[in-house]
């Protein structure tokens, strides 16, 4: 059994990209994504990864180049954050409809203004409707593992979609954690070479990106929606296959002490580890609290969420992004909408916290658990910890 080594999470993501024998990396530097692409540049410069590293002049060109390279049959990776993802926006919406698989690591960071380099989920949430598969990692091992899984899912001929692998900027991307680096032979067993069913090929010429008028635009959107929903089966399959090779089983939705919990906090990303500590402490004082974490955000894992919440009386949904002018954050809106027609009807409120790198503490969760446990429902989301 291999021993975990201490490694910065960004570097572990880059190591996964190397283990995937990626062909093309096109990237533009932006904090806090930089360590991923710096390490990839080193790996290419040292000959450890035989890839073309395209040092593009913007994120817009990064994603454009990625679409070109993947369409030409190359395993393709890029990484970005915040404004970089915002600049990619136009391409982010085009890629899933062209069915071009790309793996994008996002070191999640707040969107301007004010300009802020620290962590929240406003970058990815602003492109949540685009048709990408969205995964959220909790810790370093998961970041590495999900990067490998992302390639397999994206390139699965039944999926052929881009995948974003989200890690919290700084609070996960820049932490040094104990991480198991898989053996190359194991990775090769899990991740077959990229063989697109259709690509830019001089022997079998196809046209990609034709004009779609009113008679087929709706159909193109419906097809992309169907493919995205259907991808969940392939994601679950990839998780199971990953377990067979590496002995680590992932689920699209994780629970922690939630089976008998009366009050549940639902969230995504690395703050789950802080929340678990709060759960443990509250459990010690006899409170029936638990945690549900979404590893998969798109497609939205409806059935798994309902199962995880089936016994909950009270629910607090956490968002790391505020939908300005709306009653809830994006996760809050989605969960409330799901519960509307379900037999499961916990008292549900939505809490916004950890914006722009504001620390998320155990006390924040204790406050939320206490408030949610009262059974009181707030129709509007609550911004937690706002200074008066």
């Amino acid at each position, binding site marked *: 059994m291999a021993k975990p080594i201490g490694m910065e999470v960004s570097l572990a993501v880059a190591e996964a990209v190397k283990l995937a024998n990626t*062909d*093309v990396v*096109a990237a533009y530097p932006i904090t806090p994504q930089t360590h991923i692409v710096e390490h990839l540049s080193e790996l290419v410069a040292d000959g450890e990864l*035989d*890839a*073309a590293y*395209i*040092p*593009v*002049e*913007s994120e*817009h*060109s*990064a994603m*454009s*180049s*990625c*679409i*070109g*390279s*993947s*369409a*030409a*049959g*190359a395993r*393709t990776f890029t990484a970005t954050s915040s404004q970089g993802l915002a600049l990619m926006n*136009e*391409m982010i919406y*085009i890629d899933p409809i*062209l069915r071009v698989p790309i793996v994008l690591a996002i070191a999640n960071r707040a969107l301007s203004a004010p300009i802020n380099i620290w962590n929240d989920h406003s970058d990815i949430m602003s492109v949540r409707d685009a048709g990408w598969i969205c995964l959220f990692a909790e810790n370093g091992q998961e970041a590495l593992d999900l990067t490998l899984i992302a390639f397999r899912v994206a390139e699965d001929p039944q999926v052929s979609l881009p995948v974003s692998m989200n890690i919290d900027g700084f609070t996960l991307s820049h932490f040094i954690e104990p991480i198991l680096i898989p053996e190359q032979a194991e990775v090769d067993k899990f991740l077959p*070479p990229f063989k697109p069913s259709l*690509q*830019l*090929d*001089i022997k079998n*010429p*196809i*046209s*990609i*990106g*034709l*004009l*779609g*008028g009113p008679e*087929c635009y709706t159909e193109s959107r419906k097809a992309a929606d169907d493919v995205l929903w259907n991808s969940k089966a392939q994601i679950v399959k990839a998780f199971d296959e990953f377990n067979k090779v590496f002995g680590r089983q992932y689920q699209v939705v994780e629970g922690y002490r939630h089976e008998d919990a009366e009050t549940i906090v639902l969230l995504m990303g690395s703050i789950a580890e802080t929340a678990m500590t709060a759960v443990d402490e509250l459990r010690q004082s006899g409170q029936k609290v638990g945690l549900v974490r979404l590893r998969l955000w798109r497609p939205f894992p409806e059935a798994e969420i309902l199962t995880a919440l089936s016994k909950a009386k009270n629910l607090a949904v956490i968002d790391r992004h505020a939908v300005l002018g709306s009653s809830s954050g994006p996760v809050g809106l989605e969960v409330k909408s799901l519960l509307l027609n379900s037999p499961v009807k916990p008292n549900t409120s939505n809490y916004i916290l950890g914006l722009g790198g504001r620390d998320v503490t155990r006390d924040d969760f204790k406050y939320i658990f206490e408030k949610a446990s009262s059974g009181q429902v707030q129709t509007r989301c609550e911004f937690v910890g706002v200074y008066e």
Partner: protein
Amino acid sequence: MRAVDATYEKVTNKTFPKGPDMLASGHRACQGCGEVLALRLLLKALGTEFIAVSATGCMEVCTGPFPQSAWRMPWIHVAFENAAAVASGVEAATHVLRRKGRGYDQRIPVIAIAGDGGTADIGLQALSGALERYHENFIYVCLDNEAYMNTGIQRSSETPFMASTTTSPVGSKSKGQYTWKKDMPAIAAAHHIPYVATATPAYHLDLMNKVRRAAAIEGPAYIHVYSPCPTGWRMKPELAVEICRLAVSTRIFPLYEVLDGRYQISRKVDNPSPIADYFKVQGRFRHLKEDDIAIITQRVNGDYKRLVELTEKFPVEAAE
């Protein structure tokens, strides 16, 4: 590799490529479109084994309403401003897959095609990045019809001085476009790439040979093609080829090459045709007065003189 040393099979009237066009007939280009004529010729020059990338624009819209496509080679269109970036990715992929033993046996030219707006305005950043990065099998062609024709004849930075467009209209306080045409070939040449050229479909062999040379060179190439738009220029469709000849013979659009930073004129114009002949057949210039034409003539002759001086100061070196 020096551009001047690249060898290629010259297209002549006798060796003109036979077989079907790589751009199929039946597309929706306007009658007398000079741009689609240039496109068909330049694709024909490339043979059959290449990959094409289009920017959004007339040539993309008129050739590909789903499920039809006029493109007989592998082709991709993604958006307006990023043809150079998409082509960068395609080029990098073909390059690295070949190195890793999963690609083609030979170099595959990747040609990016965009209009003047997609090149000189919104696509300039992506183009500059691609030229600077020195992609080996990268040809960029700007099909310049001197305005945003696809959206309805709005001015671009390639619209000539005093041309009337829907966003540079003539009025009581306006003589049309108030800026001079952006010198895109000079901007491309400033990236010190091996090859820059100008061309027009009226001189079809010249155009095709420039494309062949671009494909033969290991390094990025930029070709700026004067492409008449009878619809947008308010001109009779049958004059598209004639206006190309006039653009060259009046020195308005000189044909030249920049090989390894050294200049050579493809068609010398010692005695220019009367420039008024160029303006009088185009509705976009019908408001021009003699004084206006004099200003333009002075500028055109000055630019041409400068080009001649460049060929004298920096003549193309001999091939090995």
